[in-house]
């Protein structure tokens, strides 16, 4: 089965990113394919490399990066939501005249069309949110 996963909330405040991560991991371990993981609304905040969470708890950002690397996942951060919330890669940063960028490894910034395409191309679209 081919999945697109939509994540609407950022790290720690809501459980959505955790649930999505554990679901995605289980799906991959069961032999399913993840077409795309799409981060929308505050979900884009899962993609900042500037978090320093306490060491005795899970590191939500780096474990997404690690999962992406292990399974060659396509993790997309919505450009419009990212611009609103200050998540940017080097290109976006330069384009918008900002003095820094913060996108974590394994994530890429793209448009909402990627979510719709995910819905069209996948067998299942699962939304994790608040």
């Amino acid at each position, binding site marked *: *089965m081919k999945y697109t996963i939509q994540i609407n909330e950022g790290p720690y405040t809501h*459980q959505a990113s955790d*649930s999505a991560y*554990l679901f995605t*991991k*289980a799906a991959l371990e*069961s032999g*399913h394919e993840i077409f795309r993981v799409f981060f929308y609304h505050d979900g884009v905040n899962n993609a900042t490399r500037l978090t320093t969470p306490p060491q005795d708890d899970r590191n939500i950002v780096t474990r997404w990066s690690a999962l992406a690397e292990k399974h060659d996942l396509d993790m997309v951060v919505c450009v419009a939501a990212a611009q609103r919330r200050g998540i940017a890669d080097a290109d976006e940063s330069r384009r918008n005249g900002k003095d820094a960028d913060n996108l974590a490894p394994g994530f890429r910034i793209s448009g909402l069309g990627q979510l719709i395409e995910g819905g069209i191309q996948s067998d*299942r679209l699962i939304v*994790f949110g608040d």
Partner: protein
Amino acid sequence: MLHIVNKSPFEKNSLESSISVAADGSAVLMIEDGVYGVLKGSRVEEMVKGAMGSLKIYALGPDVEARGIADKVMDGITLVDYNGFVALTTEHDKVQSWL
């Protein structure tokens, strides 16, 4: 269809709404704070038990355990782990998340 509910029934009406539109043979899976819908002796027990006649009701075991309510689950609820969650999404042809 698989209906996923992640809100406590004491906080929001998501569980009630999902049950009201779930077609016969559908499944409702409670996850995150939605697992508080499993509570024996609560004011939602009747609604959930009533739904069991036409729907299969599941709860995500890890979320139940996390919240310390594993010994308070009403009869008739099937606990699943994340592998079971994945299996439910393959058994049903589509998924609606009640946020």
